[in-house]
């Protein structure tokens, strides 16, 4: 009786999660949804007398593979939401038809397959699920097992080869960088010296205090935009910093959009 309850709960959860996986706008949410599905499946395995598989599911599958997904998601741009507008003509329609068709067919197939009551794994798991599994793997399927090990090694190697990028030009040495800075200075007049570190100003060494130039004016370079934006939203922005920001936005608008705001999601 307990089993059918767990089944129905988990069934509903996993199907909802699966639909969430498919139809969520943001990739991260889909990843999480998949995680939920895997968890529910793990539990179902456990219910079906496959404790070892449940463990492996959670540890290896959800733990490692899902994390790999998230890791790659982060690399590729976590918030890249892709629009749900379908570009290929007739793709969505046929996809739905095929999906429904498939589900109906399988359902029908399974429906009228006259299944007797499950034999149950009681005697198979007699000495415990793991030893029985181990006996099976290392006697009948040992060859397959060895092949999978080879498979995993090649997969790892393959991933390394694919992701590896050969450096096409020599690693820029320090001399190269400095020469580049002075060339940039010649062209754009950008100060070749590094920016002053935060907190090294005359009166206070706090991060939000702007450095003073010899002629007593505030050096716009030393204002930290993010902090300034936070203070502006809190209303505690110092008047001279605000004036500098005004000037800067005016000059920025005058000569085009200049530097892009930080965090703009590339691509798409």
């Amino acid at each position: 009786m307990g089993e059918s309850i767990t089944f129905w709960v988990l069934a509903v959860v996993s199907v909802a999660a699966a639909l969430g996986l498919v139809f969520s706008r943001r990739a991260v949410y889909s990843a999480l949804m998949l995680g939920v599905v895997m968890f529910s499946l793990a539990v179902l395995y456990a219910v079906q007398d496959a404790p070892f598989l449940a463990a492996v599911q959670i540890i290896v599958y959800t733990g490692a593979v899902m994390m790999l997904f998230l890791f790659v998601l982060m690399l590729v741009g976590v918030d890249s939401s892709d629009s749900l507008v379908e570009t290929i003509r007739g793709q969505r329609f046929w996809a739905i038809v095929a999906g429904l068709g498939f589900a109906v067919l399988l359902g029908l197939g399974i429906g009228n397959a006259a299944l007797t009551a499950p034999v149950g794994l009681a005697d198979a798991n007699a000495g415990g699920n793991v030893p029985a599994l181990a006996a099976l793997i290392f006697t009948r399927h040992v060859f397959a097992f060895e092949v999978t090990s080879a498979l995993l090694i090649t997969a790892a190697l393959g991933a390394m080869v694919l992701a590896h990028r050969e450096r096409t030009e020599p690693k820029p040495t320090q001399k190269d960088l400095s020469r580049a800075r002075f060339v940039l200075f010649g062209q754009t007049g950008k100060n070749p010296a590094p920016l002053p570190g935060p907190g090294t100003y005359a009166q206070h060494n706090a991060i939000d205090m702007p450095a003073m130039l010899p002629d007593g004016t505030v050096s716009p370079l030393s204002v930290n935009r993010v902090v300034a934006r936070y203070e502006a939203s809190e209303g505690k922005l110092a008047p001279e910093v605000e004036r500098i920001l005004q000037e800067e936005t005016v000059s920025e608008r005058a000569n085009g959009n200049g530097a892009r705001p930080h965090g703009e999601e590339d691509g798409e």
Partner: protein
Amino acid sequence: MEPAEIIQHSGGVIGASWLMIALPLLGAAILLLGGRRTDRFGHLLGVAMSVAAFVVAALAFFQLLGFAPGERRRGVSLYDLIPGITKIGLLVDPLSISFCLLITFVGSLIHIYSIGYMAHDPARRRFFAYLNLFVAAMLLLVLADNYLGLYVGWEGVGLASYLLIGFWQHKPSAATAAKKAFIVNRVGDFGLAIGIFTIFATFHSVSYAGVADGIAKGGSIPFTAIGLLLLLGACGKSAQLPLQSWLLDAMEGPTPVSALIHAATMVTAGVYLVVRSGPIFQATDTAQLVVTIVGVATLLAGAIIGTAKDDIKKALAGSTMSQIGYMMLAAGIGPAGYAFAIAHLITHGFFKADMFLGAGSVMHAMNDEVDMRKYGGLRKLMPITFVTFFIGYLAIIGFPLLSGYFTKDGIIETAVEHNAILGWLAVLGAGITGFYMSRLVFMTFFGKKRWEADAHPHESPAVMTWPLIILSVGAVVLGAFLVLGNRFMIFLAPAVGRPEELPSFAPFSPTGLVTLALVAVGAGFAWVRYGSAEVPAVAPRGSFLTTFARRDLYGDALNEALFMRPGQWLTRLAVFFDNRGIDGLVNSLAALIGGTSGRMRKVQTGFVRSYALSIFVGAAVLVGAWFVVGNL
């Protein structure tokens, strides 16, 4: 009396009678292959070969006379031409030897005449080569002992006439006339070929002896079919009605050619064929009747055309056509007419060649002017040509005691006796002949001068006038010699047979008198119109009848409308069908394959998801199919 048996023979001149063919052939080969080097002596070699052939023919003739009349058919077998079909051999018998004599004698005279006529033509060597080729082919035609040999000679003669008509190749009209002659002859040869096939299919042999033997054995032999087919061949070659259009255009060739080929020898080949296949024709009345009808029809057509032509050579060509009509008529009558047909053929060969050469010398004098309206009053300036031409004229209209009188009246009498309507039509033809021949003579030699400004006629050189004189002598004497006492009929009897009782020649028989009267009327009418009255230099607009005659009874127009234009249309259609139809089908098949593959390519959109979709749908279909099969 039936024709005699053929006796195999090998000795004497007859045994070497193949020389008659070989010598001119050798002459032609030397002249053609020799090239420039033979230019100097080319014409002399030509004449020599032709005369040599005549000598051999004469010797063979005398050797033949030596034998008893019954064994005068001598076969000389040469070699096995096509194993399984026929051996080739020569048949020297009265019929063929008389033809050989005519061909070689008249041919030699014309060769001599051409020395003068073609004196200043750059390609004279080629001319004599073709003349020799013609003589050789004609001799092969008459001497061959089977239909296949005859056919080889037949087409050889057609080729020679093509080469000679188109001798002045740079003239487009000559080239077209030559092509037309060859193709119309080819149509005739088509009929002859089918005839020969039928003969072979029936007898499994094409030799005359084999055919005669087969007919004697009897059996269901398609006589009429063979007869009509041979007649079609004869019409093609002898320019008889359905296939007569080429003869008038053939006048494009040099005059000696017209004299030799289109008057004396080649055009008579058809008559030879009909006479030689006597046994076949005698066994079918319908075919013989058709021959006579064709003869009479051509006779009248030729005469009518002769009346309307201003070009002297075309007028003579018209008269040739009608005279051969007479011969066909006689040949169609059967054994009774054969002797007269061949006799008329020989005398016609003489006086027609004489007149053609006379016309040639007139043209030669009037620097190649052919329009009679530009002649007039040449009688005093060219006495020899005038006298010889006049004798030929008298002979052809059947002036009493000249050769034409004997042979043509013989034909008319046998025709009237055989079939009254045809006979009287022949008499009418004789009348018209009287008219147009006199018109021709009066316009050319009598009346006032109508010459072009730069024309100053003079008598032709001796080398041209001597052949005229010899021919005119023949025109006078030959008729009487052949017909009186039925000498020629008896001579020919072993070759072609003859009627039981010999016809007695009554000089003033009723039909003879009527013909003479009609001829006199025609001549008188011509004298009134052309002799005494003023002949306009430009052809007056004639009535419907004259234009009808001037346009060769619309023979050409008919050919064009019935064959030429639909032929061109058919060719264009066939070419179009070939390019578009069959080729189109093949190319469109290729394009179809190209097209479908082009479209099939579009399936690979490049989007991974559409491939995934096709996999998924495939899987779904598979599962579905699996269920369906599972549940069957």
